[in-house]
């Protein structure tokens, strides 16, 4: 439990900072939604006249901004990006914290196996991730309450927070695996961020090619932000197949992280 507590303390500062960013973004963004504006349908027609690639690049791929649900999906997309980055950071710092802080001796003289140590570290990170997703749900519900929308969208907030959790845990596991695979923590940070970037670019790519089914399905594997798409979330659906993909990625990445963490030489470089 000591290790868990120590990890919780070490991750607290970053959590507070990103929680403030998420809270501010949702609070400031959602309260400014002014309802269905005049010409909402027309603007959708205009947007649909662009080719999908252009729409995706211009950030208009995610739905109709004139309705509350479309607007909310775009907000959640940015929350997803924050979570992807934050989760990758959590995952890799769980694995490489001792190397960065030169505290190997402190930790590994304790009578605990390395896999126990890593489990506790990852558990602490996972707790923060779950809390962040719950924060997303609570804030969405609370802010929307004050908007007087005339309809209850609670199930959308639940689905979309679950989507956040999937995005978060995929990048959390990938971040842990990457940190295990490289020797220097600094390059672990670099590659974990590259992974987030690839996920983001693949998301834009998926939006752009969503009308070419074969290509889109391949790109979608690399795009955790689209394992369940905004239109599925809006329609109340959940992509089971890609949730299986997500679980496979998480399991594989964690296996790599554990294998590397338990067998690595303890060197003090970097």
């Amino acid at each position, binding site marked *: 439990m000591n290790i868990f507590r120590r990890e919780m303390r070490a991750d607290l500062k970053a959590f507070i900072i990103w929680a403030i*960013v998420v809270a501010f*973004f949702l609070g*400031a*963004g959602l309260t*400014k*939604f*002014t309802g269905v504006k005049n*010409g909402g349908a*027309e*603007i959708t*027609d*205009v947007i*649909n*006249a*662009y*080719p999908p*690639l*252009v729409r995706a*690049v*211009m*950030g208009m791929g995610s739905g109709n*901004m004139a309705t509350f649900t479309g*607007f909310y999906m*775009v*907000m959640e997309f*940015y929350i997803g*990006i*924050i979570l992807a*980055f934050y989760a990758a*950071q959590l995952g890799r*710092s769980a694995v490489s914290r001792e190397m*960065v*802080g030169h505290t190997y001796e402190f930790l590994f003289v304790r009578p605990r196996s390395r896999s126990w140590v890593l489990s506790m570290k990852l558990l602490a990170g996972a707790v923060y991730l779950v809390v962040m997703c719950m924060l997303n749900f609570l804030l969405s519900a609370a802010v929307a309450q004050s908007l007087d929308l005339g309809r209850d969208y609670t199930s959308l907030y639940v689905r979309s927070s679950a989507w956040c959790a999937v995005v978060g845990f995929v990048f959390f596991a990938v971040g842990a695996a990457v940190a295990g695979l490289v020797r220097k*923590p*600094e390059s672990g*940070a*670099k590659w974990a*961020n590259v992974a987030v970037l690839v996920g983001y670019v693949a998301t834009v790519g998926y939006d752009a090619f969503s009308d070419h089914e074969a290509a889109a399905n391949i790109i979608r594997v690399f795009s955790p932000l689209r394992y369940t798409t905004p239109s599925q979330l809006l329609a109340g659906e959940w992509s089971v197949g890609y949730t299986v993909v997500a679980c496979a990625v998480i399991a594989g990445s964690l296996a790599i992280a554990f294998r590397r963490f338990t067998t690595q030489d303890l060197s003090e470089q970097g």
Partner: protein
Amino acid sequence: MNVYLFEFRRQWRSFLAGTLTQAIVAAVFLGGMYPMYHDSQKDVEKVLAGFPPRFAAAFGITKDMFSFGGFFAFIYVYLAIVAAIFGALWGLKVFGREKLDRCMDFLISKPASRMGLFWQKALVVLTGIVVMNGVFLGVALWVRTSVGATSPGVGQFVLMALAVGGVQLIFAALGALIAVLAPRLHSVTGLGVGLGILGFVLSALPPMTNESNFKAISPFSYFNVSQMQTQGTYETGYLVTAGALCVVALAVACVAYVRSDVKA
């Protein structure tokens, strides 16, 4: 001069990486996608023809939007995020190097004024920014010529593209400030990318909410690229804000660097 050369030798790979990334982003977005965007003009106009004329004006849809400059204004945010990430990384890395490597005493014990050290380091970061934006500008102008774009003119387009360098200066100054003020530094990659992503996320708020107050906290929005395209000017107030932010961040960092106690 020694410090400049040393820092440059340690940074040039990162400068190269940033320059190449930005050149590729510019080539792909401007060169690869602009033609498709331009071709969609007819379809969009066909849809617009079915609406009352006031409608297009109300939503800011103009012929100008389909020009090269109009497309640039749309993709500006992608160029800005690359610039912001690399700017923040360089500021953090160059000014935090001794803290990261725990060799502050080695540098500070040299017979050179701390003020001199600070500005040599600043000059290295500036070199990177100038090189990266010079190459980016070259690529952008080359694409502009090769797709046969005429609007906006070269001068105006250069002014639009300089916004990317402006964003990079702001984030480099912020990175330097954080590196100097932080009591300990373990890793800068996460911090630098975090700052860039924060800038990206905040830049979504003003256009989504139509609330211009949010522009004050979104450095990407200090440079109103679409206003530059349509009216040929940036918003003076925000331009001053951007400059002031850079100057204040650097001045505070400089004072802190010169005066602070050094932990061995």
